[in-house]
């Protein structure tokens, strides 16, 4: 058999839970993990006589995503009912948007193999979430409707994604985008993002292209599952075609499949042809949504700069590495803080290092974000400036930073009180050198006799000087003195 050329075609349907305080059509609080059926009212319970009233915040947030995804915003949009019977759907219809989605025809650029790939966005529409059926009691199903009516944005891409890795990148970048915009918490644990990839492959054999039937993998809730399920499906479909050349679109049904995380396989659920007739029709209880220029302008001005653009600007304007820019722009508050620190006049090279190496670690250790550490831009700027003028060493700055969230003291005051003001006194330095050279004879010998190891050894000795000095030594001066002393010894 001649070699096959395989081109996967993957499109994604992604549900993003919008970070509104109340539900989409009533005043109930959106809250994860509350006591079952404690965040409900007649509206989200679908009691007789109730009417939905749209949460405008959900529209604001969705427009922001639409703009960030370069979509066209539908100026005249509406609500439709999607009918199906299920116990977790109290009205037995879901309020959604069918033929006039809020946003459509956009694109999202993601990094792929060192360049940017443009993935087209077909549409993004708002809908209400269903509740949850709980099957853990034998013989009965319990229904928790706390989640019923939670606002979701469903984003649908064109099948422009060509690998599991690319899909994975798309999902993580989208998570970054929505959290950055503040439109979603994007928490995977709380089910804020759910993914449904549509997958098929083009098999090219002897110059002829064959397309396999399309498989939709339902309800994935982790990035890892997205990658694994797509990889699995690509292999399964290629193998399926190899075993049966009639396994092609049109001759075999499209399918819905589920991901079995334990067995790491997809499992057949139902053929697409048996899809429900959802009997969509416009919801007569809600008025259409008219989005005027003023409204769009307001959202545009709230969403100043989208993360990808900002990342690019940070690289170009501040000379950050891609990796550092990536970290700093990961959420909007951090990026805003970074620029606020620079506005104090602090040097960008030191500030960026401190953000990535110090502040991020402190924030992570405290399970919070840099913006919420309790250290404002002014004090962060002062710390960077202390390093720049040599008052404290970068190592000492670490120690000072550790203390800063718990005190309102300036970094300079902390440097003094902690005894970390850098010592440039040669006598004191010589004393620390004596101590280090005496305790590390072997390394000193290496530095003298093994040219290949020399620079590593010098680095080690300098580190030891910093250690015995308690971070007070000026590392530059220490390095110079170490080299001088070694030179003398070798003479």
């Amino acid at each position: 058999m001649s070699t096959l050329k395989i081109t996967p075609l993957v499109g994604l349907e992604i549900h993003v839970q919008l970070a509104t305080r109340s539900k989409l059509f009533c005043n109930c609080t959106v809250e994860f993990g509350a006591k079952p059926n404690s965040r409900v009212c007649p509206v989200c319970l679908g009691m007789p006589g109730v009417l939905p009233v749209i949460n405008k915040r959900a529209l604001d947030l969705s427009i922001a995503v639409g703009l960030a995804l370069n979509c066209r915003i539908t100026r005249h949009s509406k609500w439709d009912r999607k009918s199906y019977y299920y116990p977790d759907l109290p009205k037995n219809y879901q309020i959604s948007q069918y033929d006039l989605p809020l946003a459509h025809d956009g694109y999202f650029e993601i990094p792929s193999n060192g360049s940017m790939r443009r993935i087209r966005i077909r549409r993004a529409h708002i809908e209400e979430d269903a509740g949850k059926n709980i099957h853990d009691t034998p013989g009965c199903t319990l229904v928790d409707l706390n989640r019923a009516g939670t606002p979701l944005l469903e984003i649908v891409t064109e099948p422009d994604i060509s690998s599991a890795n690319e899909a994975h990148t798309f999902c993580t970048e989208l998570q970054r985008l929505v959290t950055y915009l503040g439109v979603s918490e994007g928490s995977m644990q709380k089910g804020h993002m759910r993914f449904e990839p549509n997958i098929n492959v083009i098999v090219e054999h002897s110059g002829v292209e064959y397309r396999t039937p399309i498989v939709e993998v339902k309800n994935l809730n982790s990035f890892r599952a997205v990658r694994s399920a797509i990889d699995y499906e690509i292999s399964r479909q290629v193998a399926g075609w190899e075993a049966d050349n009639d396994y092609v679109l049109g001759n075999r049904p499209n399918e819905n499949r589920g991901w079995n995380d334990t067995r790491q396989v997809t499992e057949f659920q139902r053929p697409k042809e048996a899809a429900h007739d959802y009997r969509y029709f416009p919801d007569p209880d809600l008025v259409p949504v008219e989005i005027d220029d003023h409204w769009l302008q307001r959202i545009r001005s709230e969403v100043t700069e989208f993360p990808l653009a900002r990342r690019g600007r940070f690289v170009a304007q501040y000379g950050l590495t891609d990796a550092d820019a990536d970290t700093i722009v990961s959420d909007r508050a951090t990026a805003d803080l970074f620029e606020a620190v620079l506005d104090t006049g602090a040097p960008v090279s030191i500030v960026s290092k401190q953000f990535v190496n110090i502040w991020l670690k402190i924030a992570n250790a405290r399970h919070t974000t840099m913006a919420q550490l309790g250290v404002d831009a002014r004090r962060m700027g002062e710390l960077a400036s202390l390093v720049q003028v040599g008052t404290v060493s970068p190592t000492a700055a670490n120690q000072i930073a550790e203390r800063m969230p718990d005190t309102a003291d300036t970094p300079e005051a902390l440097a003094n009180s902690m005894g970390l003001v850098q010592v440039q006194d040669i006598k004191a330095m010589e004393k620390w050198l004596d101590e280090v050279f005496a305790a590390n004879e072997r390394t000193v010998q290496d530095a003298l006799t093994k040219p290949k190891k020399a620079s590593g050894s010098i680095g080690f000795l300098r580190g030891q000087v910093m250690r015995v000095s308690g971070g007070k030594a000026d590392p530059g001066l220490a390095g110079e003195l170490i080299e001088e002393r070694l030179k003398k010894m070798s003479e």
Partner: protein
Amino acid sequence: MTLTETIAAVRAKRCSAVEVVQQSLDAIEKHNERLGAFISVEGERALQRARDIDARIAKGEPVGPLAGAAVAVKDNMCTAFGTTTCASQILSNFRSPYDAAVVERLEAADAVIVGKTNLDEFAMGSSSENSSYCPVRNPWDTTRVPGGSSGGSAVAVAAGLVQGALGSDTGGSIRQPAALTGITGLKPTYGRVSRHGLVAFASSLDQIGPLARNVRDTACLLKVIAGHDPRDSTSVGCAVPDYTALLGADLKGLTIGVAAGDFGKGLNDEVCKAVEAALGVYRDNGARIVEAHLPHMKYAIACYYLIATAEASSNLARYDGVHYGVRADRHEGIVDLYCASRDQGFGQEVKRRIMLGTFALSSGYYDAYYLKALKVRTLLARDFEAAFEQVDVIASPVSPVTAFKLGEKIDDPLAMYLADIHTTSVNLAGIAGLSIPCGFDADGLPIGLQLMAPHFAEERLLAVGHQFQCLTDYHTKHPPQST
């Protein structure tokens, strides 16, 4: 006593609210078995509220504009007291956790709700025979229907059991029973009255309105229940005029439009004559009667029965025996639970309409039926807009026939649907429609005149109706044995 007289009497302490309510309760006790107007009566609660009103009047404290009036609401409006059944078995045990907006407004105005009235199940019908409890009977002749679906509310007023009542009108359900029982009924403009708490039949057509003995009482009730409600996105914010104060508006130069040609097929001769006589009354008082051109009117019934059933099939999906209401005893699995509960819980007419609507919305049929009906609806609304550029109000019969015998049409749903010929177009266009008594047939059964006005022109409609009642006495006639 009329509503207006009762309120004045209570306010002037000529009688107490307790006396009014007790009288109402006694009358219900005496006549309800014969008439079937009420599904539930909240006597003790009503008396308690009446005592509270009397106490406030005695102390000289302010009371609401409807203080002391005994009223009834159709049992498809949610009340936090008693049950809200929609005359259906599937909600026979249903107790709403909240009050409908209109119930809040009535009670805030110190009206006393004495009970909840019978109707065609989920308001689907034109005879009030489709109640799963008992049919409502016409007090003018108890072998005849009172019309529907607000038959219970109409009969409660016509028989003098209450001074006023609320009904809901999706395709004529206030106006037609008002006509068949000889009282006044108003279907307000869509969006004039909040639907919050009205159990939906067809959301884009449903509207709550008052039924009373005359136009003045009707205006008085409308003033209380009208107005914007943030809980209903389709309710409209425009100001609520003082309808009673505007009843005497100058009607010089009034132009009344009459649908071109005859009033449609199946029109009873006596109804035709009474309506023409009513137009004569207006003409004699200076009104100009002209032809109104409504070319799409002939599609109204077909259009109505597609839209109404489509919306109903969706609105009634929630009654599945899972979360509330009646659940079938024996079932195997969830699908069987749905099927059995709905099979046992819904009556024939409701099932028929759910099936019609489900079909109309199905993939492959949507464009031919529902979508086309929406387009016709737009054309019909434009017909009215154009007509109202030439005329102030449009007149027609309410029903082509007077009250028919119980059982006479129940096995011929199509004949029953066709009798809605004059009323459905008002709901489709979303405009206001008023039904006032304009005569009696040879059997002494009441005949109604329908007047229609543009969106939010209720004050014009009521003034025109009031003028007729100043010149005639049909509205003062009461059925035998009434109180």
